[in-house]
Every structure is written in C-alpha cells, then in structure tokens.
C-alpha cells in the first residue's frame, strides 16, 4: 500500500484545539485529548487513587509488592508508636514542699516571683527546656527572677557541667546559672528530673512545679510554659503541675528503660 504523507507548512505548535480541520497548508486540528491522568475529572480521581480498582487490589493484595508495602507501613507505624510513647513518658518527680525550702543556696526574690530550674548539663532533652525557658522569659520579661542549677556529680571536674547547655542558659538575660554538686539543691527542692521548674511567689509560696516542654526534648507550646506565664501575670491557672521530660538527676533514674545506676 502506498502511504500518503501530508506535509504541513504551518508554524508548528501554535494552534488551537478546536478539532476543526483548517484545510490544506495548516496543521490538522487535534481533538483536545487529556492525556494527563491527573487532569481527568473527579470521576477519575477514585480510579486514579485505585479505589475503582479495589476488587483488583484485593485480588492482588497478597501479591508480593502490596503485602510488602503494607508490612512496611505497619512496621514504620509501630516504630513511630513506640517512639512517641517514649517521647511522652515523663520523668520522676520527687516530693516538693509548698514553701521555699530551707537551707538552699537559691535566693528567693522578695519582689518578684522566683523561678528555679534544675538541669543535667549533658541531657539532650534539656536543650528544649532551656529554649522554652528563654522563650518564657521573653514573655514574662522581668517579672520573675530565674536561677538555673546544673547538676554535677562531685567526682567530675567543674568543666563537666560547663556544656553548651550551661552557656545557653547563662546567655539568657536575668538568668543566674550555678552548679548543683551531687544534686544537693535538687534534693532540697524535690527535683529528680532534668528540666524540672519550680515557681515561687515573693513570699516563698510554691506556685508551679513541672516541666516546660510538651514532650521529651520537644520544644514548642506546652502547658507548663503557659501556666507560668499566666501565673507571672497574676492570672489564675488550672494547671499547677506538669510532667518533666529529661534525664534523671539522681543516681537512680526511673525514666530510663536501660536501667539506672546509683
């Protein structure tokens, strides 16, 4: 069969899509064909998503690929579930006196509220607590006096506690940073987990105790911070105690699954 070839002389590419043949010398008008599956109407959405092929999916569900993907999703989901569970388990909190503890090296501000934070200088999770402290102080300005005690076991040198976390805390204006050798001060306040925060009014009355992160090492809005800000502003709050997420300040740390060492 002899094929007939039409030679078009029109400028290629610049044409409409009316589907009308414009005659010799021009490109034949092609019908507007939606080649892109994504451009199909909503009707094809289900098909595109595979819903229209559910029977077929069931038929092939147990073939290797789909099953593998499902197993992968389950595994990943389980992993995330375990992780989130770990992230949201709070640390141990000791018995805290409702009044300013006696014998402490911490100084109670008689004109403003006093906020005391106990931190482990090597705890990665406490970084979020320091950040939140910084953010909190930005919100409450100078209405609160802040002191941060960094735990240092006695057998370690002074440098052990002078970490970036120490530096970050020290860099926050109006924040006093000092060491808490062997957790003596923490013990006075009943703080057992790094990131524990205590808020006292000028009279030494305990206003709030707990952590200022929403989960372990997770910065961002949280109930503890909101409560402190409100208390500092003289507002009433419903939350006076939150969970603390961080490393244990004691030799025994119940928050760690790997076991604690006294």
């Amino acid at each position, binding site marked *: 069969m002899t094929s007939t070839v039409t030679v078009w002389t029109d400028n290629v590419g610049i044409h409409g899509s009316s589907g009308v043949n414009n005659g010799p010398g021009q490109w034949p008008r*092609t019908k507007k*064909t939606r080649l892109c599956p994504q451009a199909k109407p909503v009707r094809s959405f289900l098909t595109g998503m595979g819903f229209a092929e559910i029977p077929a999916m069931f038929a092939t569900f147990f073939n290797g690929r789909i099953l593998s993907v499902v197993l992968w999703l389950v595994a990943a989901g389980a992993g995330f579930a375990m992780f989130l569970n770990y992230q949201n388990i709070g640390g141990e909190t000791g018995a805290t006196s409702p009044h300013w503890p006696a014998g402490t090296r911490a100084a109670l501000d008689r004109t403003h509220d006093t906020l005391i934070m106990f931190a482990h200088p090597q705890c990665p999770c406490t970084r979020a607590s320091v950040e939140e402290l910084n953010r909190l102080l930005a919100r409450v300005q100078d209405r609160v006096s802040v002191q941060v005690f960094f735990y240092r076991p006695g057998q370690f040198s002074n440098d052990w506690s002078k970490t970036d976390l120490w530096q970050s805390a020290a860099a926050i204006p109006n924040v006093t940073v000092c060491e808490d050798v062997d957790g003596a001060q923490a013990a006075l306040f009943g703080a057992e987990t790094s990131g524990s925060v205590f808020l006292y009014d000028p009279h030494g009355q305990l206003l709030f105790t707990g952590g200022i992160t929403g989960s372990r090492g997770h910065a961002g809005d949280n109930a503890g911070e909101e409560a402190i800000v409100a208390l500092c502003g003289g507002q009433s709050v419903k939350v006076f105690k939150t969970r603390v997420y961080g490393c244990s300040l004691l030799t025994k740390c119940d928050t760690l699954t790997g076991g604690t060492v006294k």
Partner: protein
Amino acid sequence: MSSAALKDPDVTDALSTDAVSRRMGELFREQQQNIFVHADRLFLWLMVCQWFFAVGLALWLSPRTWTGAISTIHPHIWLAIFLGGIITAAPVLLAWQQPGRTLTRHVVGIGQMMMSALLIHLTGGRIETHFHVFGSLAILAFYRDWRVLISASVVVYVDHVVRGIFWPESVYGVLSAPIWRSLEHAGWVLFEVTFLIIAIRKSLGEMELVAERQAKLEFLKAGIEQTVAERTADLTRENLERKQAEEQLRKSQSQLAQAQHIARMGSWEWDLTKNKVTWSEETQRLYGRNPEDVGSPMEVCIEERIHPDDRLRVNQIMAESLRTRQPFVCDHRIILPDGCERIMQGRGEILLDDRGEPVKMFGIVQDITEAKRAQEALQRSEEQLRQSQKMEAVGQLAGGVAHDFNNLLTVINGYCALALQKEQEVRPVRKNLEEIQKASERASALTGQLLAFSRKQVLQPRVLHLNEIVQGMEKMLRRLIGEDIELSTFYDSSLKNVLADPGQIEQVIMNLVVNARDAMPRGGKLNIKTSNISIDQKSSSRNRTLEIGDYVMIAISDNGVGMTEEIKAHLFEPFFTTKGLGKGTGLGLATCYGIIGQSGGDIRVYSEPNSGTTFKIYLPRTDATFEPVVISDSGRLSTGTESILIVEDDPSVRALTVAILRNCGYQVQDSSNAFEALILLKRNPRFDLVITDVIMPQMSGKELYDQIKDQLPHIKVMLISGYTDDALAHHGVLDEGLAFLEKPFSPAKLARKVREILDASVLVE
C-alpha cells in the same frame, strides 16, 4: 483500507490527526514515565542521604542519655538507625528495582513524609525542621503526579490526628485539643499541595503541548524525509539517466569519431557571422591542423592547406554556393605539413536565418586520395584491358589470316622448291621461280611477325645463353646500324641461362637495334648490356607483372631522340609507328612485346625526349644446362622408305606434302580429315608416321594425335600448323614431347623433320 480512500485528502487528514494524537499520547506517556523514573532515582539517593543524615543528627544532638553521672546511648540513635532504616528501605528498594511504577511513587511519598516526622522529632520539634515537610512536598512535585502529593498529605494528616488523640501536648502544646486542630496543620500542607497541583497541571499541559509539537514535528519530519527520499530518488534516477545519456552521447561521439576516422571523413562548420571555422577532430587530423587552430577564419584555412593551384577554384565554388544558397561539392588537393599531397572532397551546405541570409556553412570533407588513385588505376586497367582486347582481336585476325596464308605460302614455297629442284639449268624460268620463292619467304616473315605480336606463333624454346646470342648477332648488327653508330656491348661473364626460342629472341634484338638506329639518324651510341637481375618486389608495367625471382636482363640503349610519354603509352601497340609512311610496319615492337611476353618475361622502356631510350628485356632465369644445337643442312632432301599417312584438310598442302615425301622415297597415303585417317589407321596399323595438320574441322590434329597415342601407340605423329591453339600449346609454347613443324615449311625442312622423327629411337609419347 483501499488505496483510493487513502488518496482522499479528508481521509488522509483524519488519519493524520488520529496518528498525531496517538503519537502525542505515546510521547506524553514516554516523557511522563521518564520523569517518574528520574524522580524515583532522585528520591532513592535522597532517602538514603536522609537516613544517614538522621543518624548523624541523632549522634550529634543526642548521643547519650544520662542518669545522674551515668550515661548510655541515647534512644534517638537507635531510633534513627532502625526506624529511619525501615522508613528508607521500602522506597529505596522500589525506586531501585521498580522505578516508574505507581506504587513506587506513593511509597516514596509516604516514606518521605515519615522521614520528615522522624527528623522533626530528632531535632526536638524545631520549627525549622518542619520545613522539611514542605520541601519534601515540593520535591515530590517533581513526579508531576498529584496523587503522590495526596498520599503524602494523608500521611501528615494521619500523623497529626493520631498524635492529637494520643499525645496532644506533643503536637498542640496543650494537654487536650479538639480534633479539628489536626486540620490546622493539614490545612497548611493542603495549601501548598493545592498550588503544587496547579503547577503540576500546568506543567502537564505544557508537556502535552510539547508532545503534540513533537508528534507533529515527527510527522512533518517523516513527511519531509519521505519527500527528501523521493526527491533524492528522483535526483538519483535523473542523475543516473543523465549519466547514461552522457555516456550514450560520449559513445555516439566516439562512434562518430571512429566512423569519421575509418571513412577518413571529417566535419566542419563555418560561422559566417564571426568568420570562424570549427573543425572536427578527424578534419583536423586530415588537414594536419592543431586543435588550437580551431576558430581560424576560412581564408586562413584555405591559405594554409589548400594546394595553390586549387585555391582559386575552391574559393569560387564556395562563393558560388553562398550566392546561390545551394550545396556544393568540391574536390581539391591539400598539402600537409610534411609536404604530402592528398586529395580531398569537400561537401557543404548553407544554413539561412529567418531573413534568408546565410549565417552558417557546414559540411564534411573526405580524403579521397586512395579512391582517386584507385579510380586512376582502374582507368589505366580499363585502358590496358581495351588495349589487350584490341591486341587480342588483332591477334585473332592475324592468326586466322596467317593460318590460311601459311597454307598458301606452304604450297607456293613448296612447289617453288620442287620446281627449282627440277630446273637445274639457269633459265629465265628458274629466275622467276627464285623471285617467287623470295617473295614467298618475305610473306612468311610477315606472317611470322603477325603471329609473333599476336602471340599465336609456335615457340620452340631452348636453353639459351644470351651472351652467345648477342655475340652471334654482333657482326650482323654492326652492318645493320651502319658506321655512324657506335655499338658497345657489355657482357656479364656470370650471366645465367634462359629458356626461350633463339630465333625469336634474335628477332627481338634485331628489331630493337633497328629502332635504335632509326632513333639516331645522325649517329650515336648504342649499348647492349647483359646482366643478372634479382627482383625482390612485384613490378607491374602495362598489363604485365614481373614476379619476384631471378631474371636475366638485356638492355639496349641509345642516345637518340627519345620518346614522349604519349609515344611510350602506345609504343607496343601493333601498327603504331612514328616512322614515315612506308618506312615501318608498326609491327616491330609489337612483335617484341609479344615474343617476350610469350617467353614469360617483360620488356620495359625508359626514355625521355632528347635523352635517348633504353629497352630492358627481362627473361626468367633457368638452371638448365645450355646445349648447343648443331644443324646440318647438306642441301639434299632426307629420304626414307617408311610408310607415312598425311592428314590435311587443305588439298593443296596435302598434295604438296604427299609429293615431297613420295619424292623422298616414302610410301605415302593421305586423308582429308581425321575420321578418315583413323579408319585408314585401323585398316592398316603398320604406318610408321602420321603427319597431321592441327587446325581441321570436326576433329583437330591434337585430338587425332590423342586417339593414335591411345589406340596405336607405336605409330609416330608429327603435327604441322601455321599457328597453334591452346590444345596444342600452352600460351603458344609447344607442349613438351610433341613433334611439330611450323608452316610454311620448305621441302627440305619437311624431309629433315620427318627423318629426325623416324630416326628417333624413342617413341614420342
């Protein structure tokens, strides 16, 4: 589909449109698939890198966890390694093994969102790390598949919903949050995804356009390529046809040139407006011109090559042709650069313009030199043929006359001789008889000459030595030429023998010497020279040809008046003479020509007016030994007693012969014809000799001879005749073994010949 339908433009356009649409779809899907595969490859490496990054990040940010003074590996590290590995594994494997598949893309999208969640958690929920989600969505848009974005968005939404339900503070910062808050985060994702989808749609639209353009370009290109191929095929075919035509033209030109060369014919063309002559290659060669001479004016051409004697005529003929517009033919001679002269025949015609004015003359020239020479040779041959025919006619006439005349002379001479034998006394009668006999002898000589030039005489050749012939004649010749002419002879001592009739050769020499004498009326020098000559090339003169071989030459030269070409042309014709009336018969040189020709040789003449003449006689050399002949003539008739039968149709000759032989003592019977003779011979086979005339009616003497030799071989036969025919002699030379006596004969010659034959111990066979 029928071919007729395919030729319909509408059908063709419809087919083209469908074909373009199909091709556009193919190209679009091909491009989309390439994008899918490319993006899969990108995410393959991205996922791996992200995994390593997550592990590194965990090692950097939270390497260890502490319990007081005791530290252990932080769970984040194990989380990054294992959960990150799980998240990375499926997308990487699919992107590696099954790139471009739909499932691969969705797994990649889901995995990428999981990786974002992992990184956010590893970085402590830093707001900056949340950008990974949006960045990942943008990168997923590389797929240009909005469904992947939906899958990824669903993962984000599900993550927030689940965490909002179970760990609301980790997401919203509050201990409890309404479910709708999950939509807040998903909303921002949806915000980006919406615009990404718009961008994807736009991009896909552009891809469609590109695919459509490419499809059309491909069809256009295919059309152009086919057109080019067809045109190329046309051009190739045309080129081939052109080459074939050129080859054919070259072949034709070559054949024309060859034909011209073979025919020795060339063509020419004279542009009258520019006065330039163009020659063909053969014409140039014929006229000995160089190719660079093409374009010369006609005057130059004529001046250069045309023979000076022909130039005026050629110019006149061409001018006449131009004037009358008529074709012309012009034979002319040319002189080539090497001096050779050739004869050419030119033909030409006139080409007229619209107004009837001559603009061009063209034609051919042909070398007709050979044809001309052949024509001249033919003319000469025809002339010689006419001459030969004339000679033959004269010879026939002379032979016929001589036969009867010889019979008469035989009778006259015979009876005179018999009468003189009886008349012993000196009486007036005897004197009269002697005068009759002299007249008879002169008449015999005259008939002999007639027969000689007509080559009808009977030659009886012998081995001769020409030196001795000339020496024997020298005294007689000196007397013949007189004292005013000095005769010098130059003999070649090593001269070879020839086979010829001595009497005839003597006759030739005498005739030539007489002619030389007549050419030197005031005296002069006559030289006779003999020599051996070897001819190594055929030589023709008149109608005779000297073959290659050894010859003996005798040259007779004088320093007389010489001859013109006209005289030389007719020199050997009978009855042609330059001598005055009554001084020559015109038979002398004709006789010489006949005798020499009859002897197998040739006679050539070299002469210039006032420079003398030389005749050269060439006779074939023979290796046979010369035997001198001793002729004894006692004056008495030889006698005998044998029985002889005379067969002669002429009664006078028969009666004379019978009388002579009976007078000699023989027993003679006679017969008037051969049949009667055969009857007599059968009746009486004891005849010793049969003497028979050759020319007889009914049965010739030769036939009788053959009958006798066949039936009565012991009987001897002698033939007598005035001349012979081809039966008896070959070209006038008597066949070997025949006994022959020439008429007219004297009684003594007859008696002697008869006696010789009868005495011969060996029968004539």
